[in-house]
């Protein structure tokens, strides 16, 4: 019970943080979801189980800080095939993608 309250409390905190960078519109979210599966999926697999790049499912990302994920998406990982997406995505897009990855399937609550 206490644990659940904890989860709710921390997801509220996350929502608050997200609200500051204005979450993408519903239409934009659909575009990002499609991009995640189709384009990120080129390297990470359509089911995000990994390919040339590592797996991006919640289990695989367990323990990775949200900010680390955001930095990786925005700046890429120099010396690897991971490109920086900062030039074509907004900060709000990137934050949404990071949370989407941590959450797993679309529509679930963020558990942190």
């Amino acid at each position, binding site marked *: 019970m206490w644990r659940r309250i904890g989860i709710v409390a921390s997801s509220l905190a996350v929502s608050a943080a997200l609200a500051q960078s204005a979450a993408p519109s519903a239409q934009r979210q659909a575009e990002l979801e499609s991009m995640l599966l189709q384009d990120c999926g080129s390297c990470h697999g359509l089911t995000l189980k990994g390919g040339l790049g590592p797996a991006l499912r919640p289990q695989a990302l367990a323990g990775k800080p949200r900010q680390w994920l955001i930095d990786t998406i925005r700046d890429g990982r120099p010396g690897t*095939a991971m490109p920086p997406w900062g030039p074509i995505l907004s900060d709000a897009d990137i934050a949404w993608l990071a949370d989407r990855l941590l959450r797993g399937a679309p529509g679930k609550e963020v558990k942190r």
Partner: protein
Amino acid sequence: MKRWWLLLVLFSGALLADDCALRGTGDLAIVIERADGAVQIVETTHNTAIARVEGLGDLSHASVVYSRDGRYAYVFGRDGGLSKVDLLCARVEKRVIQSGNSIGGAISQDGRLIAVSNYTPGGVKVFDADSLELLADIPATWGNGLRSKVIGLVDAPGRRFVFSLWDAGEIWVADMQDPRHPRITRFRDIGRNPYDGLITPDGRYYIAGLFGEDGMAQLDLWHPERGVRRILDHYGRGEKKLPVYKMPHLEGWAVAGDRAFVPAVGLHAVLVIDLRDWRELARIPVHGQPVFVEARPDGREVWVNFAFPNNEKVQIIDVETLKVTHTLEPGKGVLHMEFEPRGEEVWISVRDRDRVQVYDTATHRLLRELPARKPSGIFMAARAHRIGL
């Protein structure tokens, strides 16, 4: 919209027919429907869909080779699935899950062996083409007991397979004279992160593109004792590279006369190589970062598609003037182009529009559109008779 569903219904009806077609397969092709784990079988004489085969697993990065009689397509899926599809009966004949994560495959010169290159666990597995029985397992070990992801697997004359090790920066040649006991020759330090490989249509040169540095690594299979040499190692030097959102592909070899055309990595350019001395002859500015660079079979034109976020267009290069002469706009998500064997038409998959398009290559006019769900690779059965495909 309504008509679209009607088509789908008619289409499913065709699937239920369990009789096998009495026909040749020389004009057939397979279209991968990547999100559905399905393939369409299409015929290129009248440009129609014949059947759809489902249950092929994760096809997010799929490729196909054909049996020498052109009846069976071997489909390599991302999830390690190797499926043998009967084109005439439109069904999966056999299917094995041979690894956790696979990238592509090849069929041996004699058609008896199927090799699959794997990311996880890194290596190559070789199967009997009839039964899909595992004959050999070649782990791509390097360094301190690590295993490398394997890419750029092709067949070569002399019953050999050639492939590259992404993490290790090596090219391996596997001699399969005795299929259960492959003899491996390793070439080390060929360059950082080879991302794909190809073999010239005559089967002589194996070339790996390098992601981690400029240039390409070339192995002369007539003279493996001479080792791997670097070609084009000055292109892009000192230039600021763009982020690469999609790995280029080297499958096939866009050769026109004594020139070859290849995608530049991280640049909006197609490189032209003089095949007499393997030097860069020219660099053609194009719309985006090229993914596939393919010569029309008569070698008169080269067609190019592009990486995200410029993947809505296709450009056509005239090989005499080395200039872009036409730009087509099929729509977002152009993933692949495949010429019909004599090159009079080309098939283009447009993922985000759920369409496959057929163009007349003389007029560059759109002839036909077929519905396909998130189509990616298109593979003509005529590949059955070509080295390296």
